[in-house]
């Protein structure tokens, strides 16, 4: 019922400075945030991109060198490891979170007693810092003191679980900790989605003789597509930004076996005095995020509204 034509009213009776001020007030109030965004978001993006084309090392140098820094980044084996890790970690993280989140949401939707408490148990990891999370999991995955020792003490003396110190397997420990942290969020999204489904459709299907699994597969899941999409995009976004988790869990190690673009960037910027390379890696991170977010946001803003809106 909102009239899209309603504008806000004309100036007050007394002309002059006071009146003009009232009319400008909304714009004035909004302007600090706009200016801040323009400078600190867009301006900084431009600045960093500019730096990525310069010869900067320990401090900014205004000598343009074309794509040099980018090629230097790509020449690093460490960068290749980081990219590879991002792909592996990202793919697993997103997939497992989606699956687990959906499973938990379906379970929770079954009229559970104490649903609030159960939900709280799956969601609390999101409330804690990744550093705390990383510390806890580092402890649990510690070969000599954590899970490995526990299982051995229980009798399986040959059990080994030293992934965290294993070059090839360490990235999977990041996956485990990451999934633990984020799947609760996905669960919450799916749960809300499930609750938004029109019950009459399901009743009609039941009357038509469809079994529960069928109803889930053919009716409910398809209706959750928007939630899938949102969750996927957000998870991908989180994966690319992952930094705290890696730092706390493995420190990027062993060696740089669990490096990600984010840790690569930080190391080269602050520790190794390679501002140009750091900037280049940051720009590439931004482009990756944009490649995912922009199409998604565009379709969200332009696309048809769902029935619930």
């Amino acid at each position, binding site marked *: 019922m909102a009239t899209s034509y309603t504008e806000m009213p004309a100036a007050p009776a007394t002309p002059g400075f006071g009146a003009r001020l009232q009319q400008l007030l909304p714009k004035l109030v*909004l302007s600090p*945030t*706009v200016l801040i965004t323009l400078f600190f978001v867009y301006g*900084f*993006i431009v600045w960093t991109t500019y730096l990525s084309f310069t010869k900067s090392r320990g401090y900014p140098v205004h000598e343009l060198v074309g794509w040099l820094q980018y090629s230097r980044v790509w020449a690093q084996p460490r960068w290749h490891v980081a990219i590879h890790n991002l792909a592996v970690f990202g793919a697993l993280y997103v997939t497992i979170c989606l699956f687990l989140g959906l499973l*938990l949401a379906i379970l929770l939707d079954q009229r559970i007693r104490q649903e609030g408490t159960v939900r709280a148990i799956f969601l609390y990891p999101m409330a*804690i810092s990744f*550093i705390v999370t990383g510390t806890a999991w580092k402890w649990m995955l510690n070969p000599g003191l954590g*899970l490995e020792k526990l299982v051995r003490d229980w009798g399986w003396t040959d059990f080994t679980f030293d992934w965290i110190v294993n070059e090839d397997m360490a990235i999977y420990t990041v996956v485990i900790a990451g999934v633990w942290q984020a799947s609760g969020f996905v669960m*919450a999204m799916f749960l809300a989605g499930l609750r938004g489904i029109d019950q009459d459709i399901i009743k009609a299907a039941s009357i038509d003789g469809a079994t529960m699994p069928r109803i889930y597969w053919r009716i409910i899941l398809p209706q959750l597509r928007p939630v899938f999409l949102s969750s996927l995009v957000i998870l991908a976004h989180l994966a690319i930004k992952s930094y705290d988790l890696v730092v706390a869990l493995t420190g990027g190690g062993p060696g740089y076996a669990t490096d990600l673009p984010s840790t690569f960037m930080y190391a080269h910027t602050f520790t190794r005095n390679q501002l140009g390379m750091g900037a280049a890696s940051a720009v590439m991170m931004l482009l990756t995020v944009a490649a995912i977010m922009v199409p998604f946001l565009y379709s969200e803003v332009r696309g048809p509204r769902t029935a619930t809106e």
Partner: protein
Amino acid sequence: MAQHRDTPHLAQRKGFPWSRVVIYGLLGFFGLIYLLPLIVMILTSLKPLPEIYAGSMIALPQHWTVEPWIDAWERSCVGLNCNGIKGYFWNSTKMTVLAVVISTGIGLLNGYVLTKWKFKGANLLFGLILFGCFIPFQIVLIPMAHLLGKMGIASSTTGLVFVHVVYGLCFTTLYARNYYMAFPDELVRAAMIDGARFFSIFWRILLPNSAPIIIVTVIWQFTNIWNDFLFGASFSTGESAPMTVALNNLVNSSTGERPYNVHMAAAMIAALPTLLVYIFGGRYFVRGLMAGSVKG
């Protein structure tokens, strides 16, 4: 909050409710896995060190002790200082409270302007602001470090407050805007006819009815800012570091025999504020999560 309506549930036949067993079983199993790290952290933080080496990670302490907690707070070594983490805890508190209050306040005003005082280009500006929520912050680290240095607030709580306000505005604006969009326009119009102007409307009509979104925004901002590590690690050193940075230093810089119990205690202390906020503000936390991800 749980709505118990007729949800589709796995078929229940007469007799032993196997499906219920499966459901509760699975939930119990997963629940335990999810709780495990928290349990392990708590248990480990209450054990004396020899027990940790000797026993298993989920064993209950034989000698309960809160020494690790006191150690962490008072005496643990972060970098070169061995004065415990209490200083850093207070750093985080100051930083978070200030940043939350400022960013929330500005965000509310922004949301108000964007929804009740529409002018040409308002949607475009909102889009511009919103984009800031999605950038990987690595892209702003270098310029920001440079700028903070120039402004003279490089390694300080003030600097961190500034950074968190700047990059928190997009979220607080988003939340407020979505909330105020659903706020009845007629109330604003009635107030206008009654003679209320820009700030009066905000102060007398909008704000008193904004409790839900204020709570959501505050919880969301508090959690994110308290838990932040990247900005803390990039823009602060030594004394001014926030809790997360201090914790990381503590855990990673021990040499020799690592006092795991102290590490866990420190981690617990770091987690406690947001955990408590979560426990007491649970449903608002969820609303915050959802509001941020479902576009208005």
